[in-house]
């Protein structure tokens, strides 16, 4: 039996029916068609499916959709303002931190949650924070540099 679910996704209130066994990741990708969130392992070990749930980074493959009832979800599709990239996205572009792109959405959202709580993290704090997000292409060097660059740019408007 499907269960009604009320969630706000990227600022838009949504009301859908979901199977109780549906993960938040499946709901985002399949039911809502937002395929920017990636499934790399389905076990919470790779971080590719990271989204923000009420501002907190979660592995959406480990959250049941019904657990998100009444909450706000931010996915990669909601990070930029229209065509204007978020400072983190811009920093990733400028620093060459994007290669195959499969880890990129998850790392960006994790980095946003980090900077929201710790606006000027040290290199070690960044490394610890993103340790749950695997990347095989970059060796993390340029990702860490991009997060540092974004943290320096992010001035209160």
């Amino acid at each position, binding site marked *: 039996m499907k269960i009604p679910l009320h969630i706000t996704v990227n600022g838009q209130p949504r009301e859908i029916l979901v199977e109780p066994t549906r993960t938040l990741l499946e709901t985002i990708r399949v039911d809502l068609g937002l395929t920017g969130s990636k499934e790399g392992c389905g076990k919470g070990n790779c971080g590719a499916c990271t989204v923000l749930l009420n501002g907190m980074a979660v592995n959406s493959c480990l959250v049941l959709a019904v657990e998100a009832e009444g909450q706000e979800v931010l996915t*990669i599709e909601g990070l930029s303002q229209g065509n204007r990239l978020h400072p983190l996205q811009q920093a990733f572009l400028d620093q060459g931190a994007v290669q195959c792109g499969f880890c990129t959405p998850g790392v960006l959202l994790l980095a946003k949650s980090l900077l929201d709580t710790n606006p000027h993290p040290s290199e070690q704090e960044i490394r610890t924070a993103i340790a749950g997000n695997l990347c*095989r292409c970059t060796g993390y060097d340029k990702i860490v540099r991009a997060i540092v660059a974004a943290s320096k740019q992010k001035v209160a408007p």
Partner: protein
Amino acid sequence: MTEYSFLGKSLPRLDAAGKLTGKAQYVADLNIPGMLHGVILRSPYAHARIRRLDVSKACALPGVVAVITAADIPASAGRAIMAEDKVLYGSHPVAAVAAVTREIAEAALGCIEVEYEPLPVVSDGVEAMKPDAPLLHPNLYTESMTGKASTPSNIANFTEFRRGDVEAGFAQAAVVREDTYRTQMIHHGYLEPQACVAQVDSGGKVTIWASVQGAFTFREQLGASLGLPLSRIRVVPMEVGGGFGGKNGMLLGPLCVLLAQKAGRPVRMVMTREEDLRMARPAPPTTITVKLGATREGLLTAAEVTMVYEAGAFASPLPPSGFVTGLSPYCLPNVKVNGYVVVVNKPPVGALRAPGAPQAAFAVECQMDQMAEALGMDPLQFRFKNIVTQGDRALNDLTYARIGFQEVLEKVAQHPNWVRPLEGKYRGRGLACGMWFGGVGSSAATLNINADGTFALLVGSVDLTGTRTIFVQIVAEELGVSPDEVSVVMGDTDTAPYADIAAGSRTTRQMGAAVQQACHDAKAELIRRGAASLGVAEGEVEYRDRRVQMKGHPEKFVSLRDLARASISTAAGPIVGRGASTRPSPAPSLAAHVVDVEVDPETGKVTVLSYTAVQDVGFAINPTMVEGQIQGAVAMGAGWALSEDYIFEDGILQNASLMDYHQPTAADLPMIDTAIVEVPSDNPYGVRGVGEPPIVPSLAAIANAIHKATGVRMSKLPMTSEAVWRAIRAQAKG
């Protein structure tokens, strides 16, 4: 050196915007109406006879549309993708099901009845070579240069190489050392699991969307496998979420097409991470014995190497290039190499970033350090004394053209991370080298001039490392336009001209050459038409700054825009530049790594304090992207060296998750310093391959650093905390 406007500049990747915003499309993002979900029944045994296989209950399950077994698969597809009478590795596919949901498809797997008769498992390459070892294939006869063996064995291939007289060489040596090294199986670790979607139209034409490194290569393999002419297959390459040699499409491709044909509906197959770890084509484990001899002055006199490559359950189609690359950085008058490719009850191996070379370099470069130590010589000086230069011969008998091996060592010698002292107990600095020839092949490109004088480039290569951006840089440079005025499409096999697979560190060299030719072709046509328009001979005009102008009279010109506009409204017709590159010469490249580690003697944990990768790239068209390739390779090498492993019990993988198979995280690594050396090759713009060389030295560099830090010589990978701790303890006990 030539001054360029757009080459040698770090333009941001053109594909980055889509990847940063979640718009980039990977296979698993596709949703085709009516699409079914395909899953595979995998063997729970590593070696067993299939006594009975009954799929009737699965077929009867509501929602199941198609079930296939070996009976549905042509023999040309081989038995590695689906077992017939015997399963030969854990997770060897036995059947596949397509159903309306993944849940139903998985439930159907549970309804398939299989009776297995377990057989003795052969899981070690050296054991598998013994005469009394159980045979995997009753009809496997060792192939070698002298022909085929007369009795079957698990040795699929024997390669030997001889140069000079090794006995005489060792007799001249003041120091001789012989040791054996072992490397483990590792996975590519791409973050996007294997995936494809296949659809068959009413006329039988197959369209397959795939995560592949080479759309055309995949099409050829798929065609040969299923007996289909290439005109009946269209491969649409999607964004690839990491390849590293592991994405050739053939793990799922044939099964997906057969399910789609049988079901008459599109079928999607996406591996779980567990399946990918169990079923993909990992790097071969090796056992390598290296004997080196050198004079008191440090000149190598002879090398004797025996390499055993475990191919997994089926003989590897790839000749293990480690046979050649391991020793090729050094001048060696006398060489003897014996190479064995051996089958065991493990997943068939495949290509992984510089296939075979890191394993060989691990053995050879560790042994080079042992020799330097025995000679009382600095390891860098020892390598300087023996490094190859132009005119020397590689082990594959290639005579080196201009190469930058010496220059790479010079760069190391001057690098602050090599020069500065490393202080502290249990800290050590390791050095290792590694070379790679780079693949060759054929590719073509088409450059259309749009009606407004902008450009549209069409290529059929897959962009793994930022090659789209490279090609736009080339067109902008050659035609003197802004990169914004150039679009690039990486087409599918029905739309784009042929491109070889993006592998072997070849795409920028090889497709880059085709793109350069297409630019020259378009420019020549502009000059022909410009000269005609100006009423002068072709020799009197030149192409410059978006114009065809009279030499010496730049005020007499016709603009690119006018020529472009005229091209679509006159009999001359549209302007299309065509380029085709055939087998560019190999562009050997050396990488040398310097790594500082600290070892905790209480736990054996190895911490990488700093890492410096020096590499001759010929010419860095986009330095930031070159650095990114090098840094990624170093991280992969660190995982191979320190933590990644396939742990088998009775041939069954025990750690098939990313929790238990530990790839390096950001917290495991420091910043990775790169130092780019540019000694031009004779490829266009002087480029050399970039992506593979930087993984080659990494395993040995870390092992050599651990030796310097602790005095223990780790001869077996991975060098986990436990392994290092045991080695330290064994050494203390003497």
